[in-house]
């Protein structure tokens, strides 16, 4: 008797579970919102913005305090709109919170998001395509041609990585890129040239190795101490792979015409590229975060155990030594081919969600438009060190630093980071976003870790990574 009930109960549960499975075939329809909208100022609307901003008390520190200043200014322009905001912790927490709230219809109006998060949200059918807002017949809503030209092209394109139709799902806000921090004092003392290509990185690193072995300054170092010094460090193995592949036109991932993600990194050219860096690693010329046991290369850089470090511009602060121990130089990312320069772009965007009330969607769009405007994004960039999403905002940031009557060593570094980031604008690229894109990213990072650490041969590491992603 008891057993029969258990069986019936289990059968009921499994029927329930099967019926839950729904095949998704969401088409991104631009016309979910009209291309001829009117702002109804008589109707009070409340919108909610989810993000990961830290708590701050001073707007000069950026983050929540500055956002609140923006909100106040925005509400003066549109008194009928109330903007509420909420930090959801880190990015994984934010993504989980959005994913859980979508089926309950509890999602916010707008949210910080990475492309692969948005690629996951699309299935809910509740992502708002921005095309009809950008090109709206109402000029107060639409972007002007001047606005469109002002967005950093690479960042703008990141909104369109979801299909081949040009559907735009997000606008850039907190952006960053990678630059090379180098120990300017050391480079000048030893008359080293700042490398611009990977081959030069190799040459300069070899020179630094010789300096370590022969120079009087290192005479007191034990062999172990000398060995712990590696001239060049790259924080993110995944970025090294993706950037180097892009620089050499090696396929990494792609999106097919039927919107399926494609995993393309398992190829012979990519293996040659990996063996190029493996050779540098074996000769103690290069290291990476995981090879340092998870320690950021910037920590080694400020401790002068590393003389060139590639990291996110978002982490600029960590590359500045305390007490002005040495001068920090900033250089563009090394390249393989001067005619095909590529630099990865990073940082979250902001996407909007579909709501029943068009006025709510208009309100969240207007707020998004407001905080991504040139003035606001330059204020954000100055406060946080992140790159603005607008070309004109770069100019504002430069002018800000130029107008300072006295500039500290720290501000000089930030100023130079902004200059190099601006210089790299034409070379920005981004990879397609789809269900498995973040997994592909993790796995190509793991290829370097496994190959550097001699856990697997290059062939094995590639096929293992490919299997992990593809199946």
């Amino acid at each position, binding site marked *: 008797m*008891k057993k029969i*009930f*258990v069986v019936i*109960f*289990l059968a009921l*549960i499994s029927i329930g579970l099967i019926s839950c499975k729904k095949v998704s075939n969401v088409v991104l329809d631009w016309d979910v919102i009209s291309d001829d909208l009117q702002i109804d100022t008589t109707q009070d609307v*409340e919108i*909610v*913005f*989810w993000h*990961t901003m*830290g*708590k701050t008390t001073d707007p000069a520190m950026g983050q929540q305090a500055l956002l609140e200043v923006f909100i106040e200014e925005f509400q003066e322009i549109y008194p009928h709109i109330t903007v*509420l*905001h*909420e*930090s*959801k*912790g*880190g*990015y994984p*927490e934010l993504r*989980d*919170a959005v994913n*859980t*709230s979508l*089926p*309950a*219809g*509890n*999602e*916010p109006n707008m949210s910080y998001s990475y492309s692969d998060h948005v690629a996951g949200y699309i299935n809910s059918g509740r992502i708002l395509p921005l095309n009809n807002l950008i090109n709206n017949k109402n000029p107060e809503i639409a972007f002007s041609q001047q606005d469109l030209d002002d967005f950093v092209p690479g960042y703008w394109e990141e909104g369109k990585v979801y299909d081949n139709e040009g559907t735009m799902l997000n606008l850039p806000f*907190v952006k*960053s890129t990678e630059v090379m921090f180098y120990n300017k004092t050391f480079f000048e003392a030893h008359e080293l040239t700042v490398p611009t290509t990977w081959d030069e990185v190799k040459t300069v690193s070899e020179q630094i190795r010789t300096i370590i072995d022969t120079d009087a300054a290192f005479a007191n170092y034990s062999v172990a101490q000398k060995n712990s010094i590696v001239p060049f460090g790259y924080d993110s193995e995944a970025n090294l792979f993706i950037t180097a592949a892009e620089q050499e036109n090696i396929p990494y991932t792609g999106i097919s015409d039927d919107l399926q993600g494609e995993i393309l990194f398992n190829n012979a050219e990519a293996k040659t590229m990996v063996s190029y860096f493996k050779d540098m690693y074996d000769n103690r010329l290069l290291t990476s975060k995981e090879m340092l046991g998870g*320690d*950021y290369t910037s*920590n080694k850089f*400020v*401790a002068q155990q590393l003389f060139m470090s590639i990291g*996110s511009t*978002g*982490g600029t602060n*960590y590359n500045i030594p*305390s007490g002005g121990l040495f001068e920090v130089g900033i250089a563009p990312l090394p390249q393989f081919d001067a005619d095909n320069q590529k630099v990865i772009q990073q*940082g*979250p965007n902001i996407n909007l969600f579909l709501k029943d009330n068009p006025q709510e969607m208009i309100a969240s769009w207007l707020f998004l438009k407001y905080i991504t405007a040139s003035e606001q994004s330059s204020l954000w960039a100055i406060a946080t060190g*992140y790159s603005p999403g607008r070309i004109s905002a770069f100019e504002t940031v430069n002018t800000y630093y130029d107008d300072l009557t006295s500039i500290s060593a720290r501000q000089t570094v930030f100023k130079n980071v902004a200059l190099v980031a601006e210089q790299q604008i034409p070379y920005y690229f981004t990879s397609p976003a789809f269900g498995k894109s973040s997994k592909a990213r993790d796995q190509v990072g793991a290829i370097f870790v496994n190959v550097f650490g001699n856990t697997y041969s290059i062939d094995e590491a590639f096929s293992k990574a490919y299997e992990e992603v593809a199946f």
Partner: protein
Amino acid sequence: MYTEQQIKEQRKAKIISKIITYSFLTIMALVILIPFYWMIITSLKSAVEIEQFPPTLFPRQIVAYNYVEALERANLLRYFANTLIVSGFSTLFGTFFSIFVAYALSRLQFKGKEIIFTILLATMMIPGEMMVITNYITVSNFGWVDSGFGSRVTNGPYYAMIFPFMISIFHIYLLRQTFKQVPNELYYAAKVDGTSDWKYLWKVMVPLAKPSIITIIILKLMGAWNSYIWPNLVASENYRLITNGLRAAFSNSDTGRTEFQLQMAATVMVTLPLFIVFIFFRKYIMRGVSRSGIKG
């Protein structure tokens, strides 16, 4: 009779086994204590000193200001109060429910008792993670979720954190087994004396099952205290629990860096009350954990 030689050897063996035992215990104690030591010294170091390699074993300069800054940066007191409210209510109600259900399932006679128990047990086969979305939709329909607009029901997030996890089948099962061990004779004797079922439960069963009930209280408290994902989903800033505060308040999500000195200062402040509770109740906690065979 043992010879002197044999006595000596025995003594030697005894000493050696003692040395082995105590060195093993010392090593294990160190394994447990070092993370606590590290937490305390990290909370007193400066940001620069934390990044240093090799790390210092004692702060070169004691920065007590970390504690002040940690309190300023995160709304720790509020989170602490929230955690007390949520864990207090869910423990109180959860324990009462477990007692009632376990009593009914073990002592009372009614139709379908076994079926109900089987169905309850069957639900244990579904992992909690699978319930997240359905639970979320349910509490959201009740208006308990605060997604930034404020919840429709006042203090809704408290309800959303208390009710879905208030009843634990495992605890009911644990208590039912304990109740079942109480001899039937006691029940009949009580009945002969004219005691009601209600009175029998509180005067006889509950005092006899005290160790199990304390186990349940402790497990419930620990569960509520450690919950992380769910509160993050349903609660807004003002209703977050201490775990969410510790994890999120001191990390820069863009660079992936954490200000460990502040995080550890906050952790020390959170651990201290628990540590005091542990000192006073360690007898029960140790018994509780070993009885249930699981850690929380």
